[in-house]
C-alpha cells in the first residue's frame, strides 16, 4: 500500500466518544489537560461533548458531570491551534444546541444519523452551513447498508450543505474491504470538493487497518482516540495510527512522541477500566452492535442476572440502531423472566 505524501486530518475522539467508557464523568480539569496536550502534539481537530452528542444529557444515555456548554467554554479558549468539533444527533439534539455550540466557539459540527436516515439531518446541516461552520454528515452503523445506498445517503447530506461525509463504523464490524467499498462509493458519488472521513471502532482490532483502507480509497479525515478511549473496545488508537501513518510517509502533522505521551501519561490514568477487546466488546464487532451499548449491557446483565453477551447478541439480532439504549433494560427483564420460567 503506497500512501506516501497523502495529507490526512486526524480528529481526536477521547473527549467525546471517550465519554462513553467514562459514563460522561470526565472532569473539566481532565478535559483541559487532555485537549491542550493534544493541541501541543499538533492534533488539528478535537471533539468535545456528551458521548451521545449535544443534548445527550439524559436518563437514557446518562447525565454528564458538566453540561456541553461548560465543557466547551472551558476547553476552547485554552487551545492555540486545534479546533473543536461537536457531535449532534437529530432526534436527541436540536438546532438550539447547535447554535449554542457555535456561540461557544465550536468550528466543526458533525450531524449524525443512522446510515439510512440522512433526511432527518436537513434542518441541522442547513443551519450549520449558514453559520459558516465546517459541516460534516456522519452516517452511523454504515455496515448495515450497501455501499451504493450509503453513497446516496451521503449525497443527501451533501445537498443540504455538508462539506464532508463520514463512513462511521459504530459497531467496529467492518473489515478493510467493507471500508474500501463504502469510501469508494462515496468518492464516486460526491462532488470532488467534498471531503470524506472514516470513524472506526476497535472491536475487531481493525481500527488501524480499516483507517488505512479508508485513506487508500479516498478518505482525508480519520477519527481516532488517544489511548483508544472510546465506546466498546474504543476507537482507533490515535497514537498508534499516527505512528503507523508516519512510518508510511502519510502527512498528519502530529508529533509521534508527544501524542504517545498524551495517551500514556494523561488518558490511560483516566480510565475506569482497561479499554480492551474483552468478550463483550468482541461480540459488538462480530455481531454488528452499536459500541455504546457495552456498559449498559454489562450493568443490566449484572442487575437482572443474565449474560451481557446474550443481551448484546440479541440487540444485534433485533437490528437495533444507535441511540436505542432504552432496549437494554427492557431486554434484560424479558430474558430474566424467560430464565425464571424455564
Amino acid at each position, binding site marked *: 500500500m503506497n500512501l506516501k505524501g497523502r495529507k490526512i486530518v486526524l480528529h481526536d475522539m477521547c473527549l467525546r466518544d471517550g465519554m462513553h467508557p467514562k459514563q460522561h464523568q470526565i472532569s473539566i480539569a481532565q478535559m483541559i489537560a487532555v485537549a491542550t496536550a493534544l493541541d501541543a502534539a499538533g492534533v488539528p481537530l478535537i471533539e468535545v461533548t456528551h458521548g451521545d452528542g449535544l443534548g445527550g444529557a439524559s436518563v437514557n444515555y446518562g447525565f454528564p458531570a458538566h453540561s456541553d456548554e461548560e465543557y466547551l467554554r472551558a476547553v476552547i479558549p485554552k487551545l492555540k491551534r486545534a479546533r473543536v468539533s461537536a457531535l449532534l444527533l437529530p*432526534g436527541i439534539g436540536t438546532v438550539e444546541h447547535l447554535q449554542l455550540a457555535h456561540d461557544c466557539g465550536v468550528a466543526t459540527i458533525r450531524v449524525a444519523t*443512522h446510515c439510512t436516515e440522512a433526511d432527518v439531518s*436537513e*434542518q441541522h446541516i442547513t443551519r450549520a452551513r449558514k453559520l459558516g461552520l465546517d459541516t460534516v454528515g456522519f452516517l452511523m452503523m454504515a455496515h448495515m447498508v450497501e455501499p451504493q445506498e450509503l453513497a446516496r445517503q451521503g449525497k443527501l447530506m451533501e445537498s443540504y450543505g455538508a462539506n464532508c461525509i463520514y463512513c462511521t463504523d459504530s459497531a467496529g464490524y467492518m473489515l478493510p474491504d467493507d471500508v474500501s467499498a463504502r469510501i469508494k462509493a462515496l468518492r464516486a458519488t460526491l462532488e470532488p470538493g467534498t471531503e470524506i472521513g472514516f470513524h472506526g471502532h476497535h472491536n475487531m482490532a481493525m481500527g488501524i487497518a480499516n483507517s488505512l483502507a479508508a485513506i487508500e480509497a479516498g478518505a482525508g479525515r480519520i477519527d481516532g482516540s488517544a489511548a483508544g478511549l472510546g465506546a466498546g473496545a474504543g476507537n482507533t488508537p490515535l497514537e498508534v495510527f499516527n505512528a503507523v501513518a508516519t512510518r508510511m510517509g502519510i502527512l498528519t502533522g502530529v508529533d509521534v512522541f508527544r501524542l504517545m505521551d498524551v495517551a500514556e501519561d494523561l488518558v490511560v490514568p483516566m480510565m475506569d477500566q482497561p479499554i480492551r477487546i474483552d468478550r463483550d466488546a468482541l461480540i459488538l464487532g462480530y455481531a454488528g452492535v452499536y459500541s455504546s451499548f457495552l456498559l449498559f449491557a454489562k450493568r443490566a446483565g449484572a442487575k437482572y442476572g443474565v449474560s451481557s453477551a446474550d443481551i448484546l447478541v440479541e440487540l444485534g439480532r433485533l437490528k437495533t440502531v444507535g441511540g436505542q439504549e432504552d432496549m437494554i433494560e427492557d431486554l434484560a427483564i424479558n430474558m430474566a423472566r424467560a430464565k425464571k420460567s424455564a
Partner: protein
Amino acid sequence: MAKIKAALIGSGNIGTDLMYKALRSPWIEPVWMVGIDAASDGLAKAREQGLSTTAAGVDGLLPHLQKDGIRIAFDATSAYVHPENARKLAAHGVVVIDLTPAAIGPYCVPSVNLSEHVGKGAMNVNMVSCGGQATIPIVAAVARVQPVAYAEIVATVSSRSAGPGTRKNIDEFTRTTASGIEKVGGAKRGKAIIILNPAEPPLIMRDVVHCLTEGEPDQAAIRASIEAMLAEVQKYVPGYQLKNGPVFDGRRVSTYLEVAGLGDYLPRYAGNLDIMTAAALRTGELIAEEIAGGRFAAARRAS
C-alpha cells in the same frame, strides 16, 4: 341524536386512517375530505365511502361548509399549512382539531385532560405529537401520585412510519413533545428523544417513559395509577400495551410500552400514527357531544 358532520383536511396516511375510524363513530359523520392531489389514494378511498372530496385544498371546501353543516374539521396537513387552514375554518365557525405539530391551540391528550376541554369552547385543539400521545399519559399517571421533577421519553418508530413532514422538522417533535410532557403530563421539566429504526419487518412503535420523582417513589400507588391509565388509553387505542415496568431504581421510574395500531388504513406497526388518529377522533367526539347537546359555546378569540 344526529351525528355532527366533520371534514378531514389532508388526504395522506393520517387523514385516510382517521376517516376509517370516524366512519365507525357514534358522534361524528365524516362528509368531506380535502386534498391537494386529485390522484391521491386517500381521496379515492374517501369517494368509495361516499364522502365529497376536493383537491383544491381548504379553499375548495369553504363554499360547502354551511350547506353541508360542517362543524368540526380535523387538520392532518403540516405545521406549515395549518395556521392558514385554522384561520379560514375558524372564520366560518368550524372547530379545528390539529394533528400537526403547529400547536396553536391548547394540547389535548384524551386520557389525561379531555375533561379540561369541556365547556372551554376552544376553536382549535392540538394533539401534541405521536410520541406525546403515547407517553404523556404515563407521565401524568406518575405525576398524579407525587411530583415529578423530570420526565424523559424515548419514542422509537419504524422508518417507514415517519413521513417527510416529520423528517424535515424533527426538532418540532422533540420540542412539542417535551412541552406537552410539562404542560399536560405535569413534569417540572420534560425531554423527548425520537429514534427511527429501518429494520424489516418494521418494528411496532415502542416508547419508554423515565420519570424522576421528587423523593422516594410510592411504588404501590404509582403501579396502580399506571394500571388505571393504561385502561383509559386502551379505550381508544386497544393496542396500547405495557411491556415491562414500572421499574423502580432510586427515584427513577421507568415504564416500557408498545403501541400497535388497529390497521385501519396504516399497517399495525405504525402505532405512532394510529394513536394520533384515535386520540384526535376521541377529542372530536367530545366536542361533537357538546355541540349536539347545545353546550358548545365558542370562546371569544383573543385576536
